[in-house]
């Protein structure tokens, strides 16, 4: 291992992390032509990417690693920068993608080539978004990941999937345009899109450009991530997607967006005055504080707005989740609430709160991916993701129930599980920063979240099965007024669609992996390690401001 730290491999690692998943997009097609099954090739490729994403953790690696494909440098060319923040998030994205692909859906068995090609595109976009140090590229990567995701959401090809995909695509496309507007303003003010140089020049730019760019970038990211004023698409967008795709959306994509938001916040807008208890939306709003400078009133006003967004995300997310009768929608609303937690952490400022936000982003990604697999298993055995249909499911498969309990404990924040630690720090730190609204909302959020997870767990362990015991492909009983007869839906299915139970063994394996992840993250030692890593990343980010 000697010399690995400064070998050519390590120097080019940022480029490889984008290039390897991208090269598998055409490679899968050619490999299949010569007889290699797409699924095997894809899993091997994802394993390779997972391995690459752990390389920066090798002893003796000096961060940040900067790579500039073509050797043009950041000003004329492209710079990919692997810093502590990227190192922390890369394995989360890779592991999330790998496990989701391992699980797959019955549709991924029907059309494995299309499915895995799209997953690799999404992977490329997510990794690139995390690594890029250039706004132009960031926009391209956002859209690469986005378009792959929209196609995956509609992968089932039925009415529900299409409705989801169209809503999601509309929301994300408008979010993309907001980000583009922010980029235009940054370019107008600075004449460059290379983040370090733009940040330097933004310091002297007219405040109206800075504030405008910050607000537009932040709202674009918030729209794509589904924070409260712009959350309406999210549950609909996830409800029609296959479980594995919903997991991809809630895990890797949200993580990459959060990582990008941090890069914008600290890299472009120079962070914000930490110790004064200022606060933020996702990306840039508070970034402008640094430049708007002494305008204390503006800062207070924006800080108030930010906490309104975060707190209303938490409250609305949990309350709406409580009202849902279908599991995927419930989980989607719960994701909105958890994004709210993270924004409170970023907004409260300071190393500890930021570290807790990072840790919470990671635990949320894993636990939500895990819950979507439980949901996928229930959908496989019961034919629907309705909560009422879960009756008796955990009694038949206790390992599934155990996994569900573990993931729920972590998401609700019950002590031995991973979610507790980050929540605890978030509550303490936001209270320290004087953000009592955030502290109370996070604490109350757990109380709101407990009933809706408990409801599923209790229902799952009840004896007996639901009355409609035979799995139906799509529950068209949802709204009788709908002009969508079941026969028409059945006609939509391609001939010889695989039966429900073909993913069984794989699903079991995927959940087992996640259970292990939950145990590792949940154990105090593992959690402590994760938190201390997050803390050093947070210190680095905050330190770059002062």
């Amino acid at each position, binding site marked *: 291992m000697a010399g690995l730290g400064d070998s050519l491999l390590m120097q080019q690692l940022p480029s490889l992390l984008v290039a390897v998943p991208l090269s598998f997009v055409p490679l899968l097609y050619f490999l299949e032509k010569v007889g290699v099954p797409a699924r095997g090739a894809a899993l091997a490729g994802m394993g390779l990417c997972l391995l690459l994403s752990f390389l920066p953790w090798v002893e003796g690696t000096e961060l940040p690693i900067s790579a500039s494909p073509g050797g043009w440098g950041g000003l004329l060319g492209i710079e990919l920068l692997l810093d502590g923040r990227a190192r922390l998030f890369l394995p989360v994205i890779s592991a999330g993608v790998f496990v989701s692909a391992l699980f797959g859906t019955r549709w991924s068995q029907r059309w494995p080539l299309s499915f895995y090609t799209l997953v690799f595109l999404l992977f490329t976009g997510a990794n690139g978004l995390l690594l890029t140090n250039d706004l*132009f590229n960031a*926009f*391209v990567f956002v*859209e690469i990941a986005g*378009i792959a995701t*929209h*196609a995956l959401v*509609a992968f089932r*090809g*039925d*009415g*529900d999937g*299409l*409705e989801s*995909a*169209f809503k999601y*695509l*509309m929301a994300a*496309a*408008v979010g*993309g*345009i907001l980000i*583009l*507007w922010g*980029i*235009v303003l940054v*370019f*107008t003010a600075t*004449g*460059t*899109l290379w983040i370090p140089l733009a940040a330097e020049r933004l310091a002297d730019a007219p405040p109206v450009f800075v504030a405008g760019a910050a607000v537009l970038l932040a709202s674009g990211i918030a729209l794509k991530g589904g924070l409260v004023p712009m959350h309406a698409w999210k*549950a*609909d967008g996830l*409800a029609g997607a296959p479980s594995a795709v919903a997991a991809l959306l809630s895990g890797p994509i949200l993580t990459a967006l959060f990582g990008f938001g941090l890069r914008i916040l600290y890299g472009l807008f120079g962070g914000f005055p930490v110790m004064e208890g200022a606060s933020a939306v996702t990306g840039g709003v508070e970034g402008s504080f640094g430049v708007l400078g002494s305008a204390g009133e503006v800062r207070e006003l924006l800080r108030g707005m930010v906490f309104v967004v975060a707190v209303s995300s938490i409250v609305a997310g949990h309350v*709406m989740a409580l*009202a*849902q009768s279908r599991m995927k*929608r419930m989980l989607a609303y719960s994701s909105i609430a958890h994004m709210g937690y993270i924004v409170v952490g970023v907004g409260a400022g300071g190393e500890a709160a930021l570290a807790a936000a990072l840790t919470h982003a990671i635990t949320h990604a894993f636990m939500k991916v895990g819950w979507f697999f439980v949901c996928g298993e229930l959908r496989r055995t019961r034919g629907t993701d309705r909560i009422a249909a879960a009756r008796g499911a955990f009694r038949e498969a206790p390992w599934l129930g155990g996994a569900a309990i573990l993931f729920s404990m972590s998401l609700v924040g019950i002590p031995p599980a991973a979610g507790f630690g980050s929540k605890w720090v978030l509550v303490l730190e936001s209270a320290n920063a004087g953000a009592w609204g955030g502290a109370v909302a996070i604490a109350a959020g757990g109380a709101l979240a407990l009933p809706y997870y408990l409801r599923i767990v209790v229902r799952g362990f009840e004896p007996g099965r639901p009355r409609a015991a035979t799995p139906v492909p799509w529950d068209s009983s*949802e*709204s009788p007024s*709908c*002009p*969508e007869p079941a026969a*028409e*839906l059945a006609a*939509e299915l391609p001939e010889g669609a695989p039966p429900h139970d073909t993913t069984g063994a794989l699903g079991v394996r995927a959940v087992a992996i996640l259970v292990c992840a939950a145990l590792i993250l949940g154990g105090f030692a593992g959690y402590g390690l994760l938190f201390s890593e997050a803390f050093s990343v947070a210190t680095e980010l905050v330190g770059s401001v002062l």
Partner: protein
Amino acid sequence: MGAIIMTTVLGLTGIAIYGLLTRRHLIRLVICFNVLEIAVLLAIVYAGFVEGGQAPIVGGAEAAYVSALPHAVALTAIVIAASSTALMLAYVVRIYRTRGSVRIERVRRWRG
């Protein structure tokens, strides 16, 4: 010049946002998205505008030359918008086939 372009940009943005919020026809939503995109493209190209500027070709420019970056961004954004639009229209066609309408109130099954 600048005033005319910025007025056009803002006007187009206003029309598009109004349309996105009020129209119930899926194809019209797609068109509104495209109008919004065109407004941004106009703004991007204008951001790189230099009075009397020349193309940034090595050895060719004597006067002030124009940065090629906004044009590259605009071209990329056009490609991305085109693929998003293609995807949206494909969904609209499929939605029409499965649900028999392209009006939001007849198509949507979920709310809340």
